[in-house]
């Protein structure tokens, strides 16, 4: 079989001119024709809402779908800390190049140079846009915008709105979207779940969606389909994602031929509230911004750690010299602000070595006492008040008085649907934006970069690049949803639903999902080896079998049925779990969020194998029960010299 080569469509020219060159030469659609073109946008998070709004403003006819009751509830809303931009307002030496470089380095040199540079380039426009929409970013007393620092950077480039930046940015995008809905250029379908993408003559031409209230399966045509459906972190059951976050849209696209790239790159966020019981349904993130003023430590002496675990000692009783501020010790240059993957692994290392705290021993301290001493409680409260309140409500401890306990948890997935420079997947007419695609973060995402990427894709990239495709589609009339391809897609969806409803086994969806989550965390989690991954692949196959033979979904499919929704999503989490393990097994190196224990330096840092794995791994579906095919997109570094990541000096 001929090896498939991948056309990434990176424009010619020097790095800094590629995007300008692209925009100068791309094809556009004239206003009269825009009205005749339909675009489906699935998802209303930062990427989906900003794309739908911007495309609506341009004059396209947009159909926008979300599973929640309102587009304002997409999980982007939960992002806390901030959004990066290369504005250099604090005059601390930032620039587009530096943001580009930090992002590429933070991603452990596993992202595309041209994409990342474009991201850094448009970052400033995002801040301008959001301020114009009325996003109330934090300000200095002089009235200008304030910045804070985030992990992996030595400059302050993070704009924020209290600890609710994601909420404010999403509400900004939602307001722009609402304006288009009123204008009629966008039609919103809330409580609808996309269950398949319809391909006609090799192009994406619509979707099949389930009305979650009536259970009715409906068909929608469009000239192009955009997926802004987020990541797949919920494969782990316990994650910082929302309960409804799922990977089903991405998996349907994958099964229809879209490549799935780098599934093994999942980000474990270092500062989450530790797991505390079996009944737990999700993990709550404590923003990375806390690492600006909080210091992370565990006891220096094992006996102190043991006494704390037994409840005999309080953290405030440990003397300063008996505390091990291990991030400051190991990484003097970046200290508590090392990137997330580094901070997470360091926490795991300490806990595995027996220095962990909390009842389970799976926690470290995040301590604000020195900041409260230095700045006063009111300043700390102003910066992080809502996060402290959130912590107290969950844990029932006052973090102003006693240090917070934190532990890493699955948070974000860098992998996703493969896209080219235009954000188009390997299926013509199908696009993926935001966390749903794989493009900009390489093997690890820096803090405050997800919001930047979601909005960059939605406001400033996709609305340009999609026109390059649609300019050829202006003569394509609206295809009737009675077409045979729609029939077939709907029937496949119906069959799948009926199959699940008919199993009538003994296990609830959640019980199987929890089982999958444990396998993922234990074997495909923070530290992976060949053995654990092989074990995971066997276990996931067993779980798939268990699901398809023993799940029980009560109620009717032709009705509002939450268990059925969850079952359909779990079926796809099982698929992505397997892909993650497969990809992690294939990638015999450590990079960013992917840590193969066999590949580490003497100091325990990730050890890349650039000669063998400097590529994006694109998995191509080859049918049910068959191994997917691996296609590689080589990553060439023209402008940046790859190095071992160093946050020590």
């Amino acid at each position: 079989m001929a090896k498939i080569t991948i056309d990434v469509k990176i424009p010619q020219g020097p790095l800094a001119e590629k995007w300008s060159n692209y925009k100068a030469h791309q094809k556009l659609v004239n206003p009269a024709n825009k009205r005749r073109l339909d675009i489906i946008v699935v998802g209303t998070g930062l990427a989906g809402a900003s794309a739908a709004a911007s495309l609506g403003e341009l004059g396209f006819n947009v159909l926008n779908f979300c599973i929640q009751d309102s587009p304002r509830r997409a999980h982007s809303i939960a992002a806390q800390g901030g959004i990066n931009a290369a504005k250099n307002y604090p005059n601390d030496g930032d620039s587009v190049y530096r943001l580009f470089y930090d992002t590429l380095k933070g991603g452990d040199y596993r992202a595309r140079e041209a994409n990342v540079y474009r991201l850094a380039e448009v970052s400033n426009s995002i801040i301008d846009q959001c301020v114009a929409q009325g996003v109330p970013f934090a300000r200095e007393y002089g009235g200008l915008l304030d910045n804070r620092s985030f992990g992996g950077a030595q400059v302050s480039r993070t704009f924020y709105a209290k600890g609710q930046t994601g909420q404010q940015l999403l509400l900004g995008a939602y307001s722009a979207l609402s304006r288009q809905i009123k204008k009629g250029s966008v039609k919103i379908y809330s409580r609808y779940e996309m269950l398949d993408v319809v391909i006609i003559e090799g192009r994406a031409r619509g979707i099949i969606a389930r009305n979650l209230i009536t259970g009715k399966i409906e068909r929608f045509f469009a000239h192009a389909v955009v997926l802004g459906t987020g990541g797949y972190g919920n494969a782990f059951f316990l994650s910082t994602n929302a309960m409804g976050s799922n990977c089903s849209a991405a998996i349907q696209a994958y099964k229809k031929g879209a490549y799935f790239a780098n599934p093994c790159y999942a980000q474990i966020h270092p500062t989450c509230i530790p797991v505390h019981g079996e009944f737990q349904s999700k993990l709550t993130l404590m923003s990375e911004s806390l690492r600006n003023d909080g210091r992370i430590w565990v006891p220096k002496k094992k006996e102190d750690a043991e006494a704390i675990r037994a409840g005999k000692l309080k953290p405030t009783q440990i003397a300063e010299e008996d505390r091990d501020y291990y991030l400051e010790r190991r990484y003097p240059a970046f200290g508590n602000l090392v990137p997330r993957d580094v901070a997470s692994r360091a926490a795991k290392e300490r806990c595995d070595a027996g220095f962990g705290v909390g009842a389970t021993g799976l926690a470290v301290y995040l301590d604000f006492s020195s900041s409260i001493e230095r700045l006063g409680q009111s300043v700390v409260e102003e910066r992080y008040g809502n996060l402290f309140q959130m912590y107290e409500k969950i844990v029932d401890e006052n973090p102003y008085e006693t240090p917070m306990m934190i532990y890493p948890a699955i948070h974000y997935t860098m992998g996703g649907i493969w896209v080219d420079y235009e954000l188009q997947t390997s299926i013509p007419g199908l696009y993926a934006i935001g966390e749903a695609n794989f493009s900009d973060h390489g093997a690890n995402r820096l803090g405050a970069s997800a919001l930047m990427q979601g909005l960059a894709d939605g406001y400033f990239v996709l609305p340009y690049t999609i026109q390059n495709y649609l300019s050829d589609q202006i003569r394509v009339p609206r295809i009737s949803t009675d077409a045979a391809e729609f029939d077939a897609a709907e029937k496949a969806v119906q069959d799948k639903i009926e199959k699940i409803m008919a199993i009538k086994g003994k296990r609830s969806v959640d019980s199987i999902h929890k089982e999958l989550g444990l396998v993922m965390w234990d074997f495909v989690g923070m530290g992976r080896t060949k053995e654990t991954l092989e074990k995971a692949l066997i276990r996931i196959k067993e779980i798939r079998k268990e699901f398809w033979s023993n799940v029980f979904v009560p109620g009717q499919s032709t009705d509002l049925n939450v268990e059925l929704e969850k079952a359909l999503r779990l079926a796809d989490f099982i698929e992505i779990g397997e892909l993650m393990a497969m990809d992690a097994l294939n990638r015999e190196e450590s990079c960013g969020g992917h840590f193969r224990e066999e590949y580490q330096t003497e100091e325990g840092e990730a050890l890349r194998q650039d000669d063998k794995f400097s590529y994006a791994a694109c998995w191509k579906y080859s049918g049910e029960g068959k191994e997917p095919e691996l296609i590689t997109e080589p990553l060439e570094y023209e402008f940046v010299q790859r190095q071992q990541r160093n946050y020590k000096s």
Partner: protein
Amino acid sequence: MEKLINIKLRVWRQKDAKSKGAFETYKLDNISTDTSFLEMLDILNEQLISERKEPIAFDHDCREGICGMCSLYINGRPHGPDDDVTTCQLHMRKFKDGETITVEPWRSRAFPVIKDLMVNRNAYDQIIQAGGYVSVNTGGVPDANAIPIGKPIADEAMDAASCIGCGACAAACKNGSAMLFVAAKVSQLALLPQGKVETAARAKAMVAKMDELGFGNCTNTGACEAECPKNISISHIARLNREFLVAKLKD
């Protein structure tokens, strides 16, 4: 400290929007006080599924108090017996051993029940669509620092903007009024120079939509503020009134 408690639940069950609903009673034993309220409902649902019954439908998503999806009326209060929280942030440590807990959906003409404890809150989206935005297109906007905004004003706008659109304000209101929700948005955008330009038109359009959708008339009882998980002040309602009346008197 963690304890185990036994509770009785009276939960509103309603098959769909058209059916008549009724309360059903369930018993749950050995619930950890560290469990969140929704996790307790998860446990109940697992129990129902194991008995081959349909689980209770309720809205929830982020489970960290920001998406605004969860919406339960518990023992006479939206989001239950704790202050400044959403239902998902409510924990069982707020309840006593042996307590009977009544769980109802939001009750308001504008929020019809969809199933069990789920209600339809599209009305809030429609109010935002009527004018809860600044009319700018993507691109072509001035530099973010072009217009300085005083910190106190930016902070007050942020306080108003922290609304999560959960609907607790209207659910708590004896008048079924959505004024706090509308005021939070009008106030946020009226405070900021970017939004000020359209304040008059926005206030008129949003209030007209609110009235059209069948929300009640505010009588300043302040129940909305007391139940708002984000603690949004009713002083924003005064600003909305002012902006609205000034706009109308100029017509």
